[in-house]
């Protein structure tokens, strides 16, 4: 009997073993519920993050500071890593904007748009996300050419979007215009409030309408070289709809001095606050000489003086001492182009590149504004549109407004940047726009646009490629990657050649190559 009992016991244990497992199934599945994350969140929270990341440190130092600012000759450097100064190719720097913005910025905007598309109470959020997504991808297409636009950042919604096609820039432009117009027209007082989640306009919907039109004007004018008729129609409609009327309308991201990296202006974080790259770069000779020649009151705003970068209090701030660094030289080759005096000075122990004008630290704080689109730009664009006959308006008034706006806007960085009205008026008078012939008017507009978009060098670089002003002399470094020609675009992020090869190759062959010298569609390319 003992034996039998044992077998019964065994059976019981066996049975309980199976029950033990079966009963646990619900508990097992419960383990996979993440108690520290949510499966839905107010999409307005995402708007804040996406927008802050437009000014991210990584890509802004690479695309804007290292490439655009030096190619456009706002700044210059003898350090090899400022690749744009000598048209060197650095795959990481060149591809940085593309590398970061699809995953950091575009996917969040796409997610907001998807979540809010059928929700009338979030129509404004939907519109603002659409406008900013278009803004960011517009920058992207201007930097590279053909890009994924329509399906970009929508990988979550459909596996078809895992390998998005590159659309021709012409199509991207058409899509941007369509998206921005539709979003603008959807903005309304009843479309929901954004409040503080909107780090550009703090929820001011009227200003977003103006921003949408400013973006449309920028996009439209870019088409001037290749499709003036379409550009004209878009511009005129946006102009009539109403855009920025003062610096109070400026589209800037409002950063803070912390506590984390994402709270800070990433461009300034790279330039000075954390990485101090600007120790290795100076204001370009081209820019300094232009400001000196025009008696520009911005000279001692743009440059903070000369001296040891680490001890700003000892800098020489006399405007007469301002001297720009010529673009395109190493410390050795620079000796060949310096005047005899400067050559001696340069070779004096402890001087070297410290004799050239530094960027001003006062506009490099973490909490300084980051420019998306400014009033000065819309005024200068309007002036150009008037000159070209795209709109009926007084080109001179717009020009003068633009120049004045550009100079006055500096006070947003530092109160000490305020310049006397008389100085500004004198400067404007000195430009003598009214008296200029048509082509010269375009030159003046181009130069002022260039001066007004210092720090927003990617925009400056795009506008220069379109308009051809200011006239820049290419640098002559023997190791320039694609010849001694100012690049007409950046080379794509190398990663895409491997991760999205069919679409990538199609884009490269459509554009006729993936080189610095390849022209994008609105620049006369394919």
């Amino acid at each position, binding site marked *: 009997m003992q034996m039998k009992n044992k077998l019964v016991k065994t059976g019981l244990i066996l049975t309980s073993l199976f029950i033990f497992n079966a009963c646990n199934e619900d508990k097992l599945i419960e383990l996979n519920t993440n108690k520290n994350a949510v499966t839905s969140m107010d999409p307005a929270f995402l708007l804040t993050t996406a927008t802050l990341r437009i000014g991210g440190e990584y890509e802004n130092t690479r695309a804007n500071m290292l490439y655009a600012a030096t190619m456009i000759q706002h700044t210059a450097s003898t350090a090899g890593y400022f690749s744009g100064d000598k048209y060197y190719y650095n795959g990481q720097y060149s591809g940085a904007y593309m590398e970061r913005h699809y995953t950091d910025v575009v996917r969040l905007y796409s997610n907001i748009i998807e979540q809010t598309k059928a929700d009338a109470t979030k129509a404004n959020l939907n519109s603002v996300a659409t406008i900013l997504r278009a803004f960011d991808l517009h920058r992207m297409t201007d930097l590279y050419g053909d890009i994924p636009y329509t399906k970009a950042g929508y990988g979550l919604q459909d596996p078809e979007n895992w390998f998005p096609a590159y659309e021709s820039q012409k199509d991207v432009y058409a899509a941007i215009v369509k998206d921005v117009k539709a979003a603008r027209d959807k903005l309304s007082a009843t479309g929901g409030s954004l409040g503080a989640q909107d780090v550009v306009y703090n929820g001011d919907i009227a200003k977003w309408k103006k921003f949408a039109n400013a973006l449309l004007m920028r996009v439209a004018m870019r088409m001037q070289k290749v499709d003036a008729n379409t550009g004209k129609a878009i511009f005129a409609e946006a102009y009539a709809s109403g855009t920025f009327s003062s610096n109070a309308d400026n589209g800037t991201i409002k950063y803070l001095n*912390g506590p984390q990296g994402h709270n800070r202006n990433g461009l300034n974080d790279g330039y000075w606050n954390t990485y101090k790259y600007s120790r290795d770069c100076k204001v370009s000779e081209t820019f300094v000489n232009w400001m000196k020649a025009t008696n520009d009151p911005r000279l001692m705003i743009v440059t903070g003086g000369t001296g040891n970068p680490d001890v700003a209090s000892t800098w020489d701030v006399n405007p007469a001492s301002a001297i720009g660094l010529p673009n395109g030289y190493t410390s050795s080759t620079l000796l060949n182009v310096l005047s005899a005096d400067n050559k001696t000075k340069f070779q004096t122990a402890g001087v070297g590149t410290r004799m050239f004008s530094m960027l001003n630290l006062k506009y490099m704080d973490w909490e300084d504004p980051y420019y998306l689109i400014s009033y000065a730009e819309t005024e200068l664009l309007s002036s150009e549109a008037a000159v070209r006959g795209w709109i009926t308006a007084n080109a001179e008034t717009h020009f003068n407004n633009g120049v004045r706006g550009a100079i006055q806007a500096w006070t947003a960085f530092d109160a000490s940047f305020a310049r006397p009205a008389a100085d500004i008026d004198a400067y404007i008078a000195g430009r003598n726009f009214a008296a200029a012939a048509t082509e010269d008017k375009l030159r003046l507009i181009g130069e002022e646009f260039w001066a007004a978009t210092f720090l927003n060098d990617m925009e400056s670089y795009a506008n220069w490629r379109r308009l051809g002003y200011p006239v820049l002399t290419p640098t002559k470094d023997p190791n320039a990657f694609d010849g001694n020609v100012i690049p007409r675009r950046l080379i794509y992020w190398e990663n895409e050649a491997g991760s999205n090869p069919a679409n990538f190759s199609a884009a490269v062959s459509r554009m006729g190559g993936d080189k610095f010298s390849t022209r994008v569609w609105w620049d006369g390319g394919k």
Partner: protein
Amino acid sequence: MMKIPKLSIWQKCLNLSGIKDFSIIIALCSMVGNLNAQTVSGTVTSTTDGSAIIGASVLEKGTTNGTITDLDGKFSIQIKTFPATLEISYIGFTSQSVVVSSAAQALQISLEEGEALSEVVVTALGMSREKKSLSYSIQQIKGEMVQEVRTANVGNALTGKIAGVNVSPPASGAAGSTRVIIRGGSSLGGNDQPLYVVNGVPIETSNYGQAGLWGGNDGGDGLAALNPDDIENISVLKGNTAAALYGARAANGVIIITTKSGVARKGIGVQFNSNLTMDRAIDMTNFQTEYGQGVQGKKFVSQDEALANSSLAWGPKYDGSNTIQFDGKSRPYSYLGESIHDFFRNGSTLNNSLAFSGGNESGNYRLAVSDLRNSDIMPNASFKRQTVALNINSKLKKLTLNVSANYAFQDAKNRPRLSDSPGNANFAVVTKPREIPFSVIQGPGEKLGAAADLTELRFQGNTFSTNPYWAAYQFYRRDISNRLFGNLSAKYDLTDWLYVMGRVGTDFNNRDAASSEAYGTAYKPLGDYNETFINRLENNIEFMIGGQKQFNDISIDYLIGGNQMRNQSKTKGTGGNDLVVPFFHSVNNVKAPGRIFGFSQIGINSIYASANVGYKNWLYLNMTGRQDQFSTLSPENNSLVYPSAGLSAVLSDALKLPSFINFAKVRASWAQVGGGGPDPYALNVQYGLLSAPHGSANAGQITNGSIPNPTLSPYTSSEIEIGADVRFFNNRLGLDVAYYNRTTTNDILNAGISATSGFGSTQVNIGELANRGVELLLNVAAIDTRDFKWDVTLNFANNISEAVNLGKDAKGNPIQFLNYNESRVRQGERIRHIVGEQLGAIVGWKHATDAKGTKIYTEDGMPVRSANANNILGYGRQPISAGLINSFSYKNFTLSFLIDVRHGGSIFSGTNWLAYRWGLHQATLEGRESGLKVSGVTATGAPVNVTVPVTRLVDYWSRYSDITENLVYDASYAKLRELSIGFKLPKSSFKKLPIESLAIQLVGRNLALLWSSTPNMDPESAYSNAGADQGLEFFAMPLSRNVGINLSVGF
């Protein structure tokens, strides 16, 4: 044993349960008890040298009555019924049966050494099995093999010793983690590390961080908690059949570690072991030493220029003249002859362990403590480990209780930073301009690596290239862990053919880590400080019912059981950037500290069964089955069944074979295992907040790094294995061969997609991977005399892993390839799985050529890349591995060495990439004086015959190095991995001392690189042990050569 009195009542019981076997009846009778028990005693010795065998098992056949021999080889056992048969066995000796007719006899039993024929190995779930009954490949190594020429991490000691097991060394010294790959791994993208089981219960061996593209450090792994002295043996279950009982977690094989137990003996046995090794970095760099700092053939003329471009060696030939350097001072422009040894120091590792053990027939114990102190070759880096290991086995009649507990305290200071240059001291050491002395970059004061103002002394313009002294002495990292793992098991023999068993295992690790990038660091002037606490816990609860039974010619060994696994990890941390008070490194000094909190848990519920049926002790059928249910997958498809079946035939027992064949076994098996989703919470989109709001605005984000997939199901891996084990010529020659073919389907991949989709990857269930290969193990007792022995062991394996199918994309088209990591070089080179190719192809740019293969250059002689970056340039994994062990012994002296060979496979070198660009590579010497002659054709076919001027050499070599092809090297090598020379003092020499044994060995590791074809780097260099990084190198820590002494004393 035929005369059985009074069995009627038992006979009835047995008839009821349908069991008819006499041995059972005898066992049952013994349970009834017999008052007339008598003591039988005897001595067990070895036929080889007549020495006493301690701990031999003496069992009364057919009963559970048994004992173990003592220190003098003596035993005594109570026998109730005569005549009785005693079975005497000991591992490594041929068992013997002796019929005892009365207690009067004093038995003299002499066992013959015959390890091969009666080898018992530890298999799945901790079951010991006779090796001949197994239908799969299993290789067991003894503890000595990891104790003599030791490494702090046990995994690393397996290098070259087991056919089909490839071990990558730690990228970062003693405290580093080890990568062990069995048969090429089962999964295309997920974890490919084996399961580690200690004393029957899985332990947590996941990694605490690896360096990646952007740097970081190897955080070590769970294996580091084991002291090699505690290891009795290690069994490696290579194939699916062997591992099928462990289910999902065994998809990459299982490494079963059994720790030492006590043995029956008089008094307390004491074993002391001391091991000291000296470690020295191996310098693989061989850079040019003729040209120094400068650009375009010219020296620097100003301090700023010297600082900004310090790393560039494109200046003129060294001329000894005084030339300005980064700090404004002039020093001779000449090669100083310094090497990495002027920075790295000689390291040392001292490991002392002390073990106490004892026991009698009803139980045994072993308690061991150890202390390891390592000072790394990286200055200011060290590792300490203290362990306590306790094993108690107790047998109270039918109840067997086992307690196994291991405690480890680990303290790792300044684990070296790897890969990308920030904080990677080795990066700066290797690339330091050769005319700047190390003494200068040490800095002017006592604070190493600091300038006069106590911030980092920069000698290179790139702020991200950290001064090596600053990185070593001013950066701070420390992690301290307290870990306890072990298990309790109770086994009760219901009858002699049926037992129940319960086992509870736990593995708990509490890790407290701090790290700081110092205030004053060039790339982070305000520094940072972070504290992180990680708690990891894994519990396994297991029940089993099993036993053995004999029916005439048929024997059955069976088991049924269940397991519940729960694993959880909780991370808490605080800290952040920007220290307020200069040079005060504390989490309390962080300007606005952030916090991190992470929690994840996973679980698997399992049931399983196994049966091993033997026929006449020569034919065996093994069958197992297991069902796992995973918490990480959705309930509709979260369960998987793993079956296995195998046949083993010992032909030498069944047939009459020629006399030179002593043993011959053939085996064949089939099994299916698989795995669940490795990551919890990967099924849905999830949102979280950034570490800080933006003023009054909340900053939200999508927390998934990868596109989630709710339809993931487990993957399966089926394997067929055939093999043979044959011994010839009196066992002097043994050969074990295996062939396997494994297919993994529905592999869960974290597949790379276009980042323009918003995500870089997605988890999909699409892969099909084939691994096939052969393994060979040859043992030769080349010389076998009483005094002199020479044994040769050769293991060889060739594994080919092929990506068969990568599923279909959204449009239904087959996916041709999947992307994995890229190198820090970031020029488009990648690790990629491609359909129809070996796993882990290295793809990238080739030099463009015309139809005839002539290289294309620009008109001015610059190399031109191929049209795309999709060219296969090599494979990051090495198919062929071999190890050759030669052991000699002469009387009390032993000598053995291990040569470790890898063949096939390639590596992309980031070190050489920079060496070309910065003018350090020997190849860049050409054309320095009068330009580099280049000939080829242009893209349009026009001939190019130009001289690239000196001013453009930097551009030439930059473009040259941006062509991936030029940096992919054959990674084959052979190394003299281990050498040991030992001497065992004969017992006679310390008869009067209370010492039982004394042995001393001189040991060496990584002694010589016999051949390789990778310039300026070690072919084993990797900055990471992660699977997707194999084949990529970027300024890895140099490996070290170790020599030392090992002393062991038994009391």
